């Protein structure tokens, strides 16, 4: 294995802050991937395996009148056709969602969104299963749909969830944070108040690998093995046990290589349950893999927040308060995935990076005839929406005050001495030092020079925009006193074993979807124990092989599981001290640690390496009382607080005045994720998130027509950036460790997705300033930009 030196892309960006655990090193998982030997769900073939396919509703809202499966069942290769009525007889027609609602596995009464699951065919091969779908006759009685969330609460609006007893409207929840009276008082006396409706349109994580499963139920011993595209294998196993009645110890969930997740693979989809039912019914393994349209039309979307933002400030630019009322479109079933106490996720971090006197937000969730979901796409539990709101509002305020947006931000940052900082909605930010990060991004961008260039170009009628975003994330959910999902505390486990020859295996409860856990977690152990990362195997993604924990989403792997791994390594190190003392016939307190070795204080030549201690532990050395003959340990980590990574992003765009086409010319990203482990992997995470941000800002949009037809149901309609739409990213970093994390790491997976959309939109709006444009909603497609230039901005609904 090649271990390379740390190579920060910008030498000015803090070369003094060395990463830990050997820093930049090649990924341990890559040799199999570059040989085409990754092992994804659809690569699994079991003896006798059958194939499932789902018939989906062609309309958004309709009574189910009848289903005739006779012809499909007569197909020579079809073994079973399962309908909602069949599931009802088994008590499996409805499954609990991650938000305490229920979702239909197959339609029994009414179709509630286009693409909803209506019937499941099991056949000998995937082509036959698809053929048989065409042979199912379904009669629908079409109903008027609710498409626009703004109309969901209108009197007389069709009631979508008439399956819920006593339900007479489409209201799901009201939630608030902050002090309303205090905030209103600050607004009432402020010099300047600016208001703006800001829509974060519906988008989709769209991982390259769609969702799928292979279910293998053994009727003899009642054991279910479920290979699944899941980011949270343990949580899925528990939920499957609760729903199916199969005892948890008889269920094994295996999450093999995952072809991207981004939150899309957190929820339990009907297809997974149907694969299990199909296997139980046929007695054979059943594979179900959705196609791209199914993925885009039925699985967890993201955002869909309509936000009324208001910001109050003094006339010289001291920001005083923020308030917002949000209308949240949750689709037909409330299936968002976030800690139970927080129906709007962590949206109340919307106070951002600024020291405010007051803040208040309300969020109202409603049902519409659209696919369920909402918390996905690397969003850190709605921090994406929060950051977008505050960073757009600050820019709008800057325009109103005629202040430079960088200067306005610098003036209002929370100061380093204010950390830990209690914001006005209940968060305690762990650490931060915002100004150096902002200044570094400006230096890398050549900010003043860019503004000069812009001025010259404007004089020539050219449209150049510079957009800034400064974000604070809240990740690493979370402390069990506050955070659970369906009653499961959000902790993660780690088990470490040092084998007799000094090689190691660490078993973790989180699940990589490309983040490189097999490398990063080996590096954490290497840092703590002092054995090389290549001697440490990381095991994940199999509930029979790993300790319990809630999985990978919300940038929680390094903040939670990374902490568990560091602590389990320290536990092993401490145990090694006792064994080394026995081996050296001295007292544990007389030993001193250097990386990889305990030695006698004052006599460094006398000591034992971890490998020698491991052999001793498993050998014949007389062990002290209470020390067992191994070098193993396990830990379950309950984080004391969340971590708060932050960053400064600057985007430079050129807008074609003739077509409205936006070209992202440069993008400068300076991230602070605390202590860094593998800078190469960190940079990769940031690059990917920046691309998401450009995609959402400029092109991605799950749109619906008035009948509720999904207009973003393929990659011909749902546009994702290619290499031609994104620039060569310019990244830098600062390091402000988390004070409560064992190694000071904060997490990085979602920072760029969270932080970049406002930078791009701020740049586009800045470019359009000569047209008097103060705000435009995403996506900034050529047509929408053109309309904005004509003074006809419109929300994306």
């Amino acid at each position: 294995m090649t271990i390379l030196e740390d190579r920060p892309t910008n030498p000015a960006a803090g070369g003094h802050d060395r990463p830990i655990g050997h820093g930049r090193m090649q990924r341990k998982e890559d040799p199999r991937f570059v040989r085409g030997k990754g092992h994804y769900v659809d690569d699994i073939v079991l003896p006798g395996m059958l194939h499932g396919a789902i018939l989906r509703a062609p309309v958004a809202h309709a009574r189910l009148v009848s289903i005739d499966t006779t012809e499909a069942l007569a197909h020579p290769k079809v073994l079973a056709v399962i309908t909602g009525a069949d599931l009802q007889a088994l008590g499996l027609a409805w499954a609990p969602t991650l938000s305490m609602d229920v979702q239909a596995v197959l339609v029994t009464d009414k179709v509630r969104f286009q693409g909803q699951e209506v019937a499941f065919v099991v056949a000998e091969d995937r082509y036959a299963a698809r053929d048989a779908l065409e042979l199912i006759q379904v009669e629908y009685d079409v109903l008027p749909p609710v498409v626009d969330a703004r109309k969901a609460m209108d009197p007389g609006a069709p009631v979508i969830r008439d399956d819920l007893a006593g339900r007479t409207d489409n209201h799901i929840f009201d939630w608030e944070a902050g002090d309303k009276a205090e905030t209103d008082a600050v607004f009432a006396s402020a010099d300047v108040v600016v208001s703006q409706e800001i829509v974060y349109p519906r988008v989709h994580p769209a991982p390259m690998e769609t969702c799928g499963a292979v279910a293998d139920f053994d009727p003899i011993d009642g054991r279910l093995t479920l290979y699944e595209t899941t980011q949270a294998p343990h949580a899925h196993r528990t939920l499957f046990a609760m729903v199916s009645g199969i005892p948890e110890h008889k269920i094994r969930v295996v999450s093999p290589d995952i072809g991207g997740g981004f939150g899309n693979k957190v929820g339990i989809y009907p297809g997974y349950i149907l694969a299990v039912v199909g296997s139980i019914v046929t007695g054979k393994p059943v594979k179900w893999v959705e196609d791209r349209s199914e993925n885009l039309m039925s699985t967890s979307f993201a955002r869909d927040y309509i936000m009324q933002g208001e910001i109050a400030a003094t006339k010289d630019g001291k920001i005083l308060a923020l308030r917002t009322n949000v209308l949240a479109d949750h689709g037909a079933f409330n299936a968002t995935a976030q800690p139970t106490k927080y129906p709007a996720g962590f949206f109340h971090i919307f106070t951002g990076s600024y020291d405010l006197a007051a803040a208040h937000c309300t969020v109202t969730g409603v049902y519409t005839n659209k696919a369920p979901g909402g918390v996905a796409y690397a969003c850190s539990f709605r921090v994406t929406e929060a950051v977008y709101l505050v960073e757009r509002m600050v820019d709008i305020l800057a325009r109103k005050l005629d202040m430079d947006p960088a200067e306005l931000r610098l003036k209002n940052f929370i100061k380093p001495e204010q950390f830990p900082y209690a914001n006005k909605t209940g968060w305690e930010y762990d650490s931060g030092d915002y100004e150096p990060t902002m200044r570094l991004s400006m230096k890398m961008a050549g900010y003043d020079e860019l503004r000069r260039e812009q001025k010259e170009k404007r004089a020539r009628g050219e449209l150049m925009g510079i957009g800034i975003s400064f974000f604070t994330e809240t990740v690493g959910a979370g402390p069990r006193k506050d955070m659970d999902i369906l009653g499961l505390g959000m902790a993660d486990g780690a088990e470490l074993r040092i084998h007799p020859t000094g090689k190691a295996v660490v078993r973790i409860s989180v699940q990589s979807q490309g983040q490189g856990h097999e490398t990063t977690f080996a590096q954490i152990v290497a840092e703590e124990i002092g054995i090389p990362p290549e001697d440490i195997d990381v095991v994940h993604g199999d509930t029979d092989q790993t300790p319990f924990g809630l999985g990978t989403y919300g940038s929680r792997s390094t903040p939670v599981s990374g902490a568990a791994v560091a602590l389990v390594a320290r536990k092993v190190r401490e145990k090694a001290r006792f064994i080394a003392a026995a081996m050296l016939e001295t007292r544990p307190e007389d030993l001193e640690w250097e990386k990889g070795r305990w030695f006698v204080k004052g006599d460094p030549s006398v000591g034992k390496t971890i490998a020698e201690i491991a052999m001793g532990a498993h050998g014949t050395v007389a062990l002290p009382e209470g020390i067992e003959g191994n070098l193993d340990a396990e830990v379950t980590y309950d984080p004391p607080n969340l971590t708060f990574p932050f960053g400064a992003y600057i985007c430079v765009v050129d807008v074609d005045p003739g077509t409205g086409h936006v070209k992202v010319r440069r993008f400068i990203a300076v991230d602070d994720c605390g202590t860094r482990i593998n800078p190469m992997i960190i940079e990769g995470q940031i690059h990917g998130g920046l691309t998401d941000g450009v995609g959402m800002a400029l092109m991605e949009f799950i749109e619906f027509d008035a009948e509720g037809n999904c207009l973003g149901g393929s990659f011909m309609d749902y546009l994702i950036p290619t290499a031609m739409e994104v620039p060569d990213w310019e990244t830098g970093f600062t390091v402000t460790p988390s004070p409560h994390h064992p190694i000071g790491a904060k997490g990085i997976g979602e920072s760029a997705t969270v932080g970049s959309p406002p930078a791009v939109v701020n740049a586009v709006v800045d470019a359009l300033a000569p047209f008097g444009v103060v705000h435009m909603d995403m996506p900034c497609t050529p047509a929408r930009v053109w309309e904005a230039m004509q003074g006809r901005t419109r929300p994306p609904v």
Partner: protein
Amino acid sequence: MQINLTVNGTDVTREIEPRVLLVHFIRDDLRLTGTHWGCDTSNCGTCVVLMDGQPVKSCTVLAAMADGHAITTVEGLANGATLDPVQQGFMEEHGLQCGFCTPGMMLTARALLDHNPHPEPLEIREAISGQICRCTGYATIVRSIQWAAEHSISAADTAEEEVRA
């Protein structure tokens, strides 16, 4: 119907349904699962293989159309234990994360370098612009292909050296 083709240098003869897509033939019949499937509409490029040295999206090619042609999949990139410089470059420069788009990206890169051993970054971006990666943001893929270009001894280079000599 029967088709005869070469896959990674090996002659293959198979009976197939005429409607079977090349991607399914490669994955399900030949069990070469390094070629992936991602969209059905020729937009994502996770299914890219080389047909007579040219990248094609195997989700929009019928297996029948490959009759008489030479197919290279990711499994055919390495020469035994020796990786193609493109494969090495993707590891060196972090050109992959989840690995799902990677086989298609690497095959397009191979085809590009075969025709243009020293491409400019923009030429690399154009070459892979028919393929989507959700993880990397493309910059590291461009660097990976540049690494491969810098570490390849191509036929064109050899010829050039001979001329100079």
